[in-house]
């Protein structure tokens, strides 16, 4: 929007706020480029002109809390964060050798990985279209590297298909595509789609299917060199007097379809997983550490919030120092609360019934992850798998190989299990950490027999046992009714309090949701504060 009158954006907003109210002002802010209408605008986000001596207290130093703190500080507010943990990041968290983690129930794990090796128990990948989180990573100089989502040489496995023998992803993809092309080409040739398409269109479609599926001149998918260029060769082309290349036998069609392995090739095609997708070099918490460096002296650690109160004059938050047990109070003019709803539901807070109902209605989803260190990178050395993900229907669900340090001669850490919802997430969480690791090794050995001799040590996190989230993410689920009833009430400002975080977003279980939620919440809060001046 062009401003020609000579007024500053802030002055314009002030006028709109006084005359037309906060809602109109928020709309105007969107138009002026303060608040984001499209998520891409997250890269240009900035607030300006905090009224003098206005303080905002933030609860939680996860990605949402630190986004809010960073931007509110830049706008001129006096900002402080209270954080339960001894460090910043919340779910943005990495475990390295020497780290310890005590879960709910009291079990303590000491991570024994070699120097330089790590495991991300929570977030681990950043799609290119998560503009907000990537914006902060880039602004703070966090080094990024490609995360290998799709690896054509990784495995797809089930004990119920192909005799329990893992097959390569490229074989599943090429064969599924080939057979589907063949079936469709055949049915077009038999006149099944004559009503759907003109002759010219049918000819074009058949030509495209032949090329798309690597079909032969009879529109058949089979053991051909052109199919081998997709699924891999029985004998690879070599040099000198080495044997000539040879085509490979596709998987049997019926067994492939019944195996449901084709489900695995969709994931990498979803926008959230398409290339390019990234990871921070050295662990996801590099982003948390970078945020924290931008906020020197702002975060009060080891502070367990126990009560939140607001009145006409301001907000007052009671917290306990978890190191010495001291009860303390912090006051401010306004509050941004990013404590997960699972925990916030258990903290007394005087907000209205609609927000209260929303907080008490949001269940938290289940997930578990296991990090395993092996004595050597056998997946690279023996199986030629460099990064990426193998899929299985065993309880571990997937194995993900490190997207970094390829060819390194020493030890390596892989993700030995990643469950998401479903019975296995609860079962893994219900185990002791030692049992989780033991089970992950036991099941993983069915795909990589090398596990039996190469396993070194491991750590395992069940997200409902994480003391500061009690769950993986706000599970709005597919029940649109839940969102319809409560989402707006969760996000609306209540007096001096606004909530933010992954749970206050349409992008659950992604850091982008935390960033966009924080930007949106503080835009509305800022609009309200400025309007009240």
């Amino acid at each position: 929007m062009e401003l020609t009158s000579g007024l500053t954006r802030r002055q314009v907003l002030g006028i709109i706020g006084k005359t037309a109210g906060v809602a109109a002002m928020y709309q105007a802010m969107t138009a002026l480029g303060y608040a984001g209408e499209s998520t891409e605008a997250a890269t240009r986000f900035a607030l300006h002109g905090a009224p003098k001596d206005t303080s905002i207290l933030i609860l939680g130093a996860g990605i949402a809390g630190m986004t809010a703190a960073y931007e509110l500080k830049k706008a001129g507010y006096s900002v402080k964060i209270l954080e339960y943990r001894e460090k910043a990041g919340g779910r943005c968290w990495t475990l390295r050798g020497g780290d310890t983690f005590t879960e709910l129930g009291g079990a303590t794990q000491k991570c024994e990985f070699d120097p330089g090796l790590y495991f991300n128990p929570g977030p681990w990948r950043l799609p290119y279209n998560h503009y907000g989180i990537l914006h902060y990573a880039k602004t703070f100089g966090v080094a990024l590297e490609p995360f290998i989502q799709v690896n054509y040489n990784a495995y797809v496995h089930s004990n119920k298909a192909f005799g329990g023998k893992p097959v390569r992803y490229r074989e599943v993809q090429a064969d599924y595509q080939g057979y589907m092309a063949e079936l469709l080409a055949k049915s077009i040739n038999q006149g099944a789609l004559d009503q759907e398409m003109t002759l010219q269109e049918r000819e074009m479609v058949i030509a495209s299917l032949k090329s798309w599926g690597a079909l032969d001149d009879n529109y058949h998918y089979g053991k051909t060199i052109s199919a081998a260029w997709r699924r891999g060769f029985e004998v690879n082309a070599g040099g000198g007097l080495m044997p000539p290349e040879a085509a490979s036998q596709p998987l049997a069609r019926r067994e492939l379809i019944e195996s449901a392995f084709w489900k695995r090739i969709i994931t990498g095609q979803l926008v959230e997983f398409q290339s390019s997708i990234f990871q921070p070099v050295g662990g996801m918490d590099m982003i948390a550490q970078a945020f924290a460096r931008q906020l020197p002296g702002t975060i009060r650690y080891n502070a367990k919030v126990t009560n939140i109160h607001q009145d006409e004059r301001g907000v007052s938050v009671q917290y306990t120092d978890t190191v010495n047990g001291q009860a303390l109070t912090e006051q401010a003019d306004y509050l941004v609360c990013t404590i997960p709803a699972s925990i916030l539901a258990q903290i007394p807070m005087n907000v209205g019934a609609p927000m209260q109902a929303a907080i008490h209605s949001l269940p938290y989803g289940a997930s578990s992850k296991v990090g395993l260190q092996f004595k050597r990178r056998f997946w690279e050395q023996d199986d030629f798998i460099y990064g990426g993900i193998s899929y299985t229907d065993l309880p571990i669900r997937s194995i993900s190989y490190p997207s970094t340090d390829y060819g390194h001669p020493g030890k390596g850490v892989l993700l030995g299990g990643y469950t998401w919802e479903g019975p296995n997430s609860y079962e893994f969480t219900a185990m002791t950490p030692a049992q989780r690791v033991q089970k992950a090794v036991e099941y993983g050995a069915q795909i990589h027999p090398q596990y039996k001799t190469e396993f070194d040590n491991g750590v395992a996190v069940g997200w409902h046992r994480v003391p500061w989230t009690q769950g993986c993410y706000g599970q709005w689920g597919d029940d649109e009714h839940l969102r319809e009833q409560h989402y707006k009430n969760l996000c609306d400002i209540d007096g001096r309090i606004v909530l933010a975080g992954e749970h206050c977003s349409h992008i659950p279980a992604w850091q982008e949701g935390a960033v966009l939620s924080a930007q949106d919440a503080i835009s509305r809060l800022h609009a309200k504060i400025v309007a009240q001046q």
Partner: protein
Amino acid sequence: MNPLFTYAKRATTATLLAGGLLTAAAQAADEPPMTLSGSKIAAQSGATIYQSICQACHQADAQGAQGAGFYPALAGNMKLAAADFPVYVVLNGQNGMPPLRGLLDDAQIAEVVNYVRSHFGNHYQDQVTAEQVAAKR
């Protein structure tokens, strides 16, 4: 429940695990089955269902846990007096506790509710049936 007793019990378990003294045989006897297919938990008895799901949050001794928030104890919990209440909570969840109606069928919910109401210092005699659970879905 006597807090000293609880403490002693926890310490023993921890020591056993740390020392790796738990033999494979002993573990196998205690271990609930893992679900290998389908969307319902494989465990069928009250005890193994408890160990497969409820224990993830309420803990092995049903004493609950304390962190930034808490999981309530089910041990000696007066709110279990009427079976309807735990049946309702398991079906529909409560605060952060997710609804478990999708993971457990009616018979499994009856089993685990009867188990919790007659263990961990709870001594309720009446039993809830799968039919009664079905009526609450």
